């Protein structure tokens, strides 16, 4: 399934490049108009008239409007692809004068394209950004339009889970609306656990390490990870830090100058992480496994445990490993008796932001409002509602969601707080140093104090 997706994405990419070039060309005019808003140029006056009239009346006037919607759902086998197309089509039928131009890229391509577009101030009408630290440079550069007013319309704001919008808010202005909100958890293969004589999933980190050893003795691969994509290891490490720190906020304390990386909470987490590596938890050659290859080990029943965000639920649900409801989930356990399993690594999802220089700002906002209002309903219908950032009404069980999905949904209700990932908190350069430092723990045993020092150094070197 994945490879076909990649192929389609690949072939599609060529097309998108062409479309992208064309889009760049046309949005150029828009920018000129925006920059020279004071000048009596044609585009400036048309923008003014558009903003004066409500979107509904501009529909009546029949003015043709094209909105470019950059998104990360290029894969037709992904339920979100169909969802996106369905909502867009519905909106276009209701508003015959509006055409939504989809620029569908895969995640990495989109990130790079947006960076390039941002450098030349040519952000598409709607684009995708990641929360907090990752979107901050764009916000600082003044590229996005605030969504404060728009989100109040039609009660859209109340559909979001409480607190989730904070990750997209800067100086009181909301700049993006998230498509997801996930938590990190451990998936486990019940049959393999049984084979190793383990009755129940571990509730302490010490038990977890012991279980890893038991599995290893039976010749079963204890955990799978795709550490070529360095964030995977970091995500797991940060969960340990969340425990050893006795609660969330370690990185914030570092930024506020209350703690340094040489704090015992951090070295404790490094130590715990190394215990897991030394116990042989991860597959050989883990650092050359990319995300999908790592996940596939678990999905094909070749590994007993898998630590990942709840977004993986859908894929694991339909995998070989989950035949007859064979996959269970458990919360990341306490480490050294510290921490609360109900605090999770949180992953507020990628989010939709609107270009400040959009030629058709009112229409774009109206469309995004409509899109987000319909998003949870449509996601529920295609069984993609696990990890949606909005409240979803509906009977999951009756809609055919699996037991595992139900367990994950139940876990969401237990969340009492948590941290977001390292690269969503720290600036990119510090994050890169961190990611490669953690990757190094997979291949060589380091002194936790040295790892801490390396982090502190990188943080200070890159402080702004």
């Amino acid at each position, binding site marked *: 399934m994945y490879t076909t997706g990649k192929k389609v994405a690949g072939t599609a990419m060529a097309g998108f490049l062409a479309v992208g070039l064309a889009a760049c060309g046309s949005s150029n005019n828009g920018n000129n108009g925006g920059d020279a808003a004071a000048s009596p140029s044609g585009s400036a006056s048309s923008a003014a008239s558009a903003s004066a009239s409500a979107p509904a009346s501009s529909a009546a006037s029949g003015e043709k409007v094209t909105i470019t919607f950059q998104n990360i759902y290029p894969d037709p086998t992904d339920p979100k692809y169909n969802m996106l197309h369905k909502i867009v089509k519905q909106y276009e039928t209701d508003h015959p004068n509006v055409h939504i131009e989809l620029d569908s890229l895969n995640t990495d391509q989109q990130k790079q394209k947006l960076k390039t577009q941002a450098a030349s101030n040519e952000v598409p009408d709607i684009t995708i950004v990641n929360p907090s630290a990752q979107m901050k*440079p764009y916000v600082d550069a003044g590229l996005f339009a605030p969504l404060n007013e728009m989100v109040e319309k039609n009660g859209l704001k109340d559909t979001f889970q409480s607190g989730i919008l904070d990750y997209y808010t800067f100086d009181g202005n909301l700049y993006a609306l998230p498509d997801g909100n996930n938590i990190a958890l451990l998936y486990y293969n019940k049959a393999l656990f049984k084979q190793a004589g383990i009755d129940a999933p571990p509730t302490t980190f010490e038990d977890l390490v012991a279980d890893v050893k038991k599995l290893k003795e039976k010749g079963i691969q204890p955990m799978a990870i795709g550490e070529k994509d360095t964030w995977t290891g970091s995500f797991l490490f940060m969960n340990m830090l969340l425990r050893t720190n006795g609660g969330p906020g370690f990185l914030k304390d570092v930024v506020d100058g209350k703690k340094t990386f040489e704090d015992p909470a951090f070295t404790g987490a490094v130590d715990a992480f190394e215990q897991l590596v030394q116990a042989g938890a991860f597959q050989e050659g883990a650092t050359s496994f990319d995300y999908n290859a790592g996940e596939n080990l678990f999905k094909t029943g070749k590994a007993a445990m898998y630590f990942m965000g709840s977004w993986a639920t859908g894929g694991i649900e339909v995998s070989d490993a989950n035949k007859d409801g064979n996959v269970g989930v458990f919360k990341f356990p306490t480490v050294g008796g510290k921490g609360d399993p109900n605090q999770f690594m949180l992953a507020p999802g990628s989010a939709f932001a609107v270009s400040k220089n959009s030629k058709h700002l009112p229409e774009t906002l109206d469309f995004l409002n409509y899109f987000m209002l319909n998003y949870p309903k449509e996601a529920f219908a295609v069984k993609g509602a696990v990890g949606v950032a909005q409240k979803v009404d509906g009977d999951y069980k009756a809609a055919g969601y699996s037991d595992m999905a139900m367990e994950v949904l139940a876990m969401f209700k237990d969340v009492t707080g948590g941290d977001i990932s390292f690269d969503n908190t720290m600036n990119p350069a510090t994050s890169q140093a961190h990611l490669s430092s953690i*990757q190094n723990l997979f291949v*060589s045993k380091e002194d936790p104090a040295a790892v801490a020092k390396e982090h502190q150094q990188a943080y200070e070197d890159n402080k702004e």
Partner: protein
Amino acid sequence: MNVLKVSRWTIAAFVLPCLLLYVGLVFAPIIVSFYNATLNWNGIGVAKHVGLDNFHRMFTNDSVFWPSVRRTFMLAGFSMLVQLPLALFVAILISRFVRRPNFLVSSYFMPVILSVAVIGQLWKTIYNPASQGGMINQILIKLGLGSWTHAWLSEPKVAIYAIIVIGLWQYLGYHILIQFTGIQNIPADIYEAAKIDGAEGFKADRYITLPMIVPIFKISVVLSFIGSLQSFDLIMVTTAGGPAHATDVLASHMYNISILSQKYGYGSAIACFLVVVCLAATVVINLLFNRVEKRYD
């Protein structure tokens, strides 16, 4: 100058489009890069002039930079010292002993046409640990050499060599083709004359093939050197520079810094270094070969 019997204006008019393209697409970006290298800029927001700070930091205070320079030159070194002589040797053997060489040369050339992404995935499965079905490790175990097995692409000490092997394998056919063509172009009558004088077999190669192939060999050397300096895709597909920068080369380091760490200015400084090294290498190689060629003239 007037051999072509056209006016200089005509020549200028015909050269111009190409020249403009070349200047616009090659020189202008290079100059812009040099300018960017003096900035502290994340690629999006406001840039700040920092003079030569980026270069200073690159040469004195970047723990990844010099090792990645070393690995870049390792790639080039292995390519020139192992791959090219081997390619020349194979080319000589093919032209001497194979009646219909086209099929053989084409087969050697195959990997060059394959996309690097495909090659990377292919070799990843070959290099996999035995428990994941990796071919090399399984063969080693079957041969009773279990202690020789490695996680080839994820052990910091061996990973770069594993990647070098892939590179050597992929472009061997390319250089065989170039040099084979070169050998084919040496007039047969020279060999015949030499035969009368008693130079046959490898003696003929030593005194005829080698001197006559020098200009072609130079192309191979330049191509392989520049290619090695710019190697990027293969590394991205196989290890992405990991584990922990153990396989980073200049190009991948530049990518990490400018795209992932969002230090666009600093990344440009690394790019400038790469440009300068490429230019210097091309000049040096040309000088060396000019001297060699003169000797045989």
